[in-house]
């Protein structure tokens, strides 16, 4: 009976609330500067959408703006989902696929979600801003944007719906045998306490090297070998999970594992050299779909991919061994755009992958640039800077922001649990939507700043025109 009422309530909300929201008359709304006004499509940018919802949003945008958007599936994911792409330009002028093209994608790493929302925001902004934002109108006249909100729709949903931390699964969904026992993906993470996130496990232990912070029950303090401690000691037991396959190890064969961003065809290296590589370049269907699309669109001259986190604007080379590919003239152009980005996105730093992050082969940005000659940036979205607009004491800031800005919504308090292998333990910690994914109240800002950075890049793509014609009799 109760569930029937719930269903009725859900139906009411589902059917009528959107109507109420859309029922607002434009005359009741005062325009905020820099944001499209009187829009055909309304989208909330303080939440995250799964792959089906993203597909629906892109369809809404395309349906509402048939003269500005062509929506196309560029391929199927491993589990058979369409990878939707929006080709956005002013179709009333010029030959669309011969305009300089700017490619944007998000979410190559499944848990690095907000790139998809930035893509949707960009598509929404271009289409809704076209009518009265002159910059957008001009841009759409002689540029085309190819926007793919998620190039990893399967694993995006896995991140949202299955047992995950903020950093998992990262992989795509092709099952692989990680522990060499001939079985694939048979011992992944488990959400033991059912809070929707995989948090941490800890256990009281006389020899543990952590104690509780007396001032903050969420926090653990690490102790050194010389510290004299009278408080109860704890040991960390890793991410929530059990030994599903009975081999004596916990969580050792999770979904995948491979890294879709080690799968690209520039200076690709196999797994023993570059951990995470799959079988050969573009052996994952999703990256293959992007590669096929890009190869079929030689008009693409600029590109952007979105990851998280850390607040970085990254350029290649990914690998120290590939320095020679990035010539000086091109680096000057990268620098000009990257430095502008630092200014537009406070807290973000313009960095080079191989020397500032790690030295890796087979990344997307390297194939775009090395293989296709396309200037490409990868932004690592969200940084703790955003909470208090400074970089002071980052590790403390997380706890403070969780409590004061997010009102305690992002932490599962430690609670006892009986573990089949470890016995009496406690489970708790930051939820998966904290730390990497931008908190709701900051998301629209993140979307806008990153979008204008791509506009700046797109605006400076080469665009040949005949300036002047002189005819001289010989």
């Amino acid at each position, binding site marked *: 009976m109760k569930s029937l009422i719930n269903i009725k309530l859900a139906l009411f909300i589902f059917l009528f609330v959107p109507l109420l929201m859309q029922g607002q008359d434009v005359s009741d709304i005062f325009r905020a500067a820099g944001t499209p006004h009187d829009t055909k499509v309304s989208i909330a940018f303080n939440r995250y959408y799964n792959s089906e919802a993203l597909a629906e949003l892109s369809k809404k945008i395309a349906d509402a703006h048939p003269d500005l958007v062509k929506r196309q599936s560029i391929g199927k994911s491993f589990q058979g989902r369409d990878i939707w792409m929006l080709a956005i330009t002013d179709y009333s002028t010029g030959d669309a696929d011969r305009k300089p093209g700017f490619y944007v994608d998000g979410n190559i790493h499944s848990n690095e979600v907000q790139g998809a929302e930035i893509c949707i925001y960009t598509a929404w902004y271009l289409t809704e801003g076209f009518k009265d934002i002159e910059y957008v109108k001009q841009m759409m006249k002689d540029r085309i944007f190819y926007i793919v909100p998620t190039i990893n729709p399967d694993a995006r949903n896995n991140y949202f719906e299955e047992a995950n931390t903020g950093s998992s699964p990262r992989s795509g969904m092709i099952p692989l045998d990680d522990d060499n026992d001939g079985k694939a993906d048979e011992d992944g993470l488990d959400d033991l306490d059912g809070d929707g996130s995989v948090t941490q496990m800890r256990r009281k232990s006389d020899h543990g090297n952590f104690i509780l912070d007396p001032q903050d029950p969420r926090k653990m303090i690490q102790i050194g070998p010389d510290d004299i401690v009278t408080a109860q000691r704890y040991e960390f037991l890793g991410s929530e999970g059990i030994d599903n396959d009975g081999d004596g190890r916990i969580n050792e064969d999770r979904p995948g594992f491979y890294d879709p961003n080690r799968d690209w065809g520039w200076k*690709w290296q196999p797994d*023993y050299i570059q951990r995470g590589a799959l079988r050969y370049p573009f052996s994952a269907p999703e990256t293959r779909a992007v590669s096929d699309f890009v190869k079929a669109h030689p008009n693409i001259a600029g590109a952007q991919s979105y990851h998280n986190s850390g607040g970085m604007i990254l350029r290649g080379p990914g690998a120290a061994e590939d320095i020679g590919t990035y010539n000086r003239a091109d680096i000057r152009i990268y620098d000009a755009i990257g430095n502008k980005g630092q200014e537009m996105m406070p807290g973000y730093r313009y960095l080079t992958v191989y020397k500032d992050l790690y030295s890796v082969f087979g990344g997307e940005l390297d194939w775009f640039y090395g293989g296709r000659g396309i200037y490409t940036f990868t932004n690592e979205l969200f940084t703790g800077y955003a909470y208090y607009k400074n970089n002071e004491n980052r590790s403390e800031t997380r706890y403070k922001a969780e409590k004061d800005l997010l009102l305690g919504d992002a932490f599962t308090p430690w609670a006892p649990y009986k573990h089949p292998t470890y016995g009496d333990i406690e489970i708790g910690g930051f939820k998966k939507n904290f730390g990497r994914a931008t908190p709701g109240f900051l998301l629209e800002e993140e979307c806008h700043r990153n979008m204008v950075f791509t506009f700046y890049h797109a605006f400076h793509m080469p665009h040949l025109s005949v300036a002047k014609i002189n005819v001289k009799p010989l």
Partner: protein
Amino acid sequence: MKIKLFLLLLVSCLVLPAKTWAQQDYRNFNTLTRDLSALASRHSANTDLKSLAKTPGNKDIWALTLYSGQAQDKPAVAIVGGVDGSHVLGVEMTARLAEKILTDHKDLLEKTTFYIFPNMSPDATEQYFNALKYERRGNGANTDDDRDGDFGEDGFEDLNKDKRITMMRIEDPTGDYRMLEEDPRIMVKANPAKGEVGTHKLLTEGMDNDKDGHFNEDGEGGVIFNKNLSYNFPYFKPGAGEHPVSQKESRALLDFLYAQPNIYSILTFGPANNLTKPMKYNASGANKRVVTSILKGDAKLNELLSETYNKIVSPKNAPASVTEGGGFFEWSYFHFGKLAMSTPGWWAPMPAKDTTQKETKNAALNFLRWAEQNDVNDVFVDWKEVKHPDFPNQKVEVGGMVPFKQMNPPYTMVEEAVNKHSEFLAAFLKMQAAVKFENLKTESLGDGMNRITVDLHNPGLLPTHTEMGDRSRWMRQINVDLKLANNQKIVSGRGHQLINVIPQDGTVQLTWLVQGKGSVELTAGAPHVGTETIRIKL
């Protein structure tokens, strides 16, 4: 489709006597397809013939599995031919090895599964059988080799109408080539440091169709299989493809190989050669992140294989290994981690000494002399003057080595090469790694406690994992599992454990304390070395 296949079989049964290996010449795609189908149906209990993909030229990439029982349950050798489209011998030898195993050596299937891929370049090898012959290597994909926006706009022309593409020499003091002293038919590069000056330009036969100053730089086809793999991929080089493994052929083969965890070794017939002469270990290349040298332990294995090979196949005058980057053999070792072997399969021996001729180091001339001594005809097209519109005021002659001949012997010589390589294969399989339980001991310690001790031994002359295979995630470690009944308990030791590698003739001792009565089941193995199971009474 089914009717077609049936008709094909019917025709092959009626027209062909059972002995398909008695054919007279290299086989084109249709003949080979027909023969493979006939072979597979004659030995249907031991074969599985499957098309992995259709090439851009609409030809099948055939995979023929030879097995007995369950294919994946036994260690496997993959044999790959046609990696280079000009090497039709490789196709023939691969196919004939399959035929030979099934007709003369079926016993090999008791311990080994064979995955046989006769031709990875069927679009290209067809050029050998076409009216106009040239050493084509690329597939049927449209490519823009000179990156000018036009596809396939500047190919060869048969200027002297002899139905084959050879060379053109143009008399020109600015040219870099001269005639070889020992034989003016042969053109060699002039070396000014040795006081030599060029007298000719040397180009492939044809015209500059797109008038860009280059000759025949963007003809039909395509991507070269043996340049399209991921090790040391030659970016932006003609024939390589846009990125590694960009073609249907290479993807289909790799997808198939990755799905067979029982593959231990790969034998390639092609221009790479690590059998007459083993790959050399180079410490700095082996210790870099991107490994460019065979690893130390594997170099030793290569030496052993090479020794075995050279006892059977004479290595004299064998060509040095050829690689242009992106090669299949290099991939099979450096990226796939398997025990990798490659050989051209045949080469002309040195000509017999002839006091009337000056000895030469020139390989082409030695080949011509050998051919003459052995009645191998039609190996050289004599230079003949032609009128060439791109060189209106110069003397242009067309001629040179007849395509294909240096790598592909007259068909009568193929039989011997096949026999020798089948002998080598049998010798190689005798060295195969395996796991065997030895010296099993169970001791009762009282209170229902038992100590089990057993040696896990590799009786082979090869290790269970190459050093490279040990690094690769695609070669499974040896899994050791002790399965208990409900009333039993492991007190010490692990129910499940992994062993990285057991060296050749090496042993790993295993021990457990088990409490309980009855018997336990012990299993050890990996798909590429086989699996052993024993029941142990407590």
